[in-house]
């Protein structure tokens, strides 16, 4: 009984941290289960995918009802994230456990360094342009241009669709292999490469997470990679933590939390790397 409650409490912490820092809780679930409870990486990834689906589902529903997410663009890109997730989900059962641990250690280190860089650059960082304003009338000359037009929003125009599709396949592979939502790939691709405003890119990425994670979670489920007794308490905890976190995020000074988060990520990265090298 204690273990069930500890799992749920760990899930609450992961969901709360993730929501407060805008990262999603997925990145903490795998280290929590592997380093904290000794679960195999693959099983932890399966549980994490369930957590990611549950937390993104509630947020995506709200984003859609408020018309923040770009549904058309999300559906086109999620076709490619789902293909990536299919490939990644199958590959996850072929790769040895230490390789998965090593890949996760790299993801943790990359995320920690990205957060550090963002923190150091906070003062000097210019505000990100929220999509290029449309100055000329929309008169698409080619079918591809017309297609881009159909995927654009009212006050921004989508560009670099091919790059977005390629990035989405990569995001799907990362999501399926490591049990994360993949927003760390999708949001920068949509915002910086495709010209989608940051708020819309974040909401659209959230919308795509469900389908992406489902495509690989099905593989984990049918191949015995999800333990319901572990997934249940963890997912419930993450959902509660993410719900509380998203409602309090505006009122919390996240600077200290962010520093703590970076420390946790770096520590987890080192421990996962040790596991990958057979030292733990």
């Amino acid at each position, binding site marked *: 009984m204690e273990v*069930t409650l500890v799992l749920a409490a760990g899930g609450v912490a992961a969901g709360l941290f993730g929501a407060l820092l805008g990262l999603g809780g997925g990145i903490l679930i795998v280290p929590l289960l592997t380093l904290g409870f000794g679960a195999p990486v693959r099983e932890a990834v399966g549980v994490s995918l*369930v957590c990611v689906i549950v937390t993104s*589902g509630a947020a995506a529903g709200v984003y*859609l009802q408020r018309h923040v997410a770009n549904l058309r663009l999300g*559906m086109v890109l999620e076709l490619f994230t789902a293909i990536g997730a299919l490939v990644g989900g199958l590959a996850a*059962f072929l790769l040895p456990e230490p390789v998965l641990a090593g890949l996760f250690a790299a993801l943790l280190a990359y995320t920690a360094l990205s957060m550090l860089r963002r923190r150091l650059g906070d003062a000097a960082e210019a505000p990100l342009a929220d999509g290029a304003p449309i100055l000329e009338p929309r008169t698409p000359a080619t079918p591809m241009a017309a297609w881009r037009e159909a995927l654009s929003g009212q006050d921004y125009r989508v560009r670099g669709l091919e790059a977005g599709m390629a990035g989405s396949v990569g995001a799907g592979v990362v999501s399926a292999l490591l049990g994360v939502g993949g927003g760390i790939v999708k949001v920068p691709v949509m915002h910086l490469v495709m010209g989608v405003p940051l708020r819309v890119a974040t909401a659209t990425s959230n919308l795509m997470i469900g389908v992406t994670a489902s495509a690989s979670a099905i593989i984990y489920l*049918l191949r015995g990679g999800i333990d319901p007794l572990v997934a249940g308490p963890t*997912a419930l905890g993450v959902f509660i933590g993410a719900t509380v976190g998203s409602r309090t995020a505006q009122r919390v000074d996240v600077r200290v939390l962010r520093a703590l988060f970076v420390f946790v990520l770096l520590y987890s990265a080192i421990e996962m790397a040790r596991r990958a090298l057979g030292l733990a």
Partner: protein
Amino acid sequence: MGAQLSDRVELERVLGLLLSAGTYVAVVLVGLGVAGLVLAGRSPLGPDVAPFDPGRLPADLVAGRAEGFLWLGIIVAIATPAARVGAAGVGYALRRERIMAAVAVAVLAVIALAVLLALGTG
């Protein structure tokens, strides 16, 4: 143009409701399963749980076993995004947006392929 916009707004509202409802149903089912685990004093780290078996699900639910509610909650969670894609496909087909309807069918085909490959290579 105005009718198109209100159509889009309505479709997004319905899909948003579907996603939220599916997620909350999944969370309630998982919550019941977790409550069952706690009340029974069972440890998640005990002996291995049998892999997912759809045939056992109704019996587990009728008997009030925690596994039944946990599995059903997980299935509802995993199926909800696919249901959203299916509903979007129907919505686009009714609006004669053939390309978007085809995109929805393609997404569902990838998910179906995932099921087939998982079963075939398991």
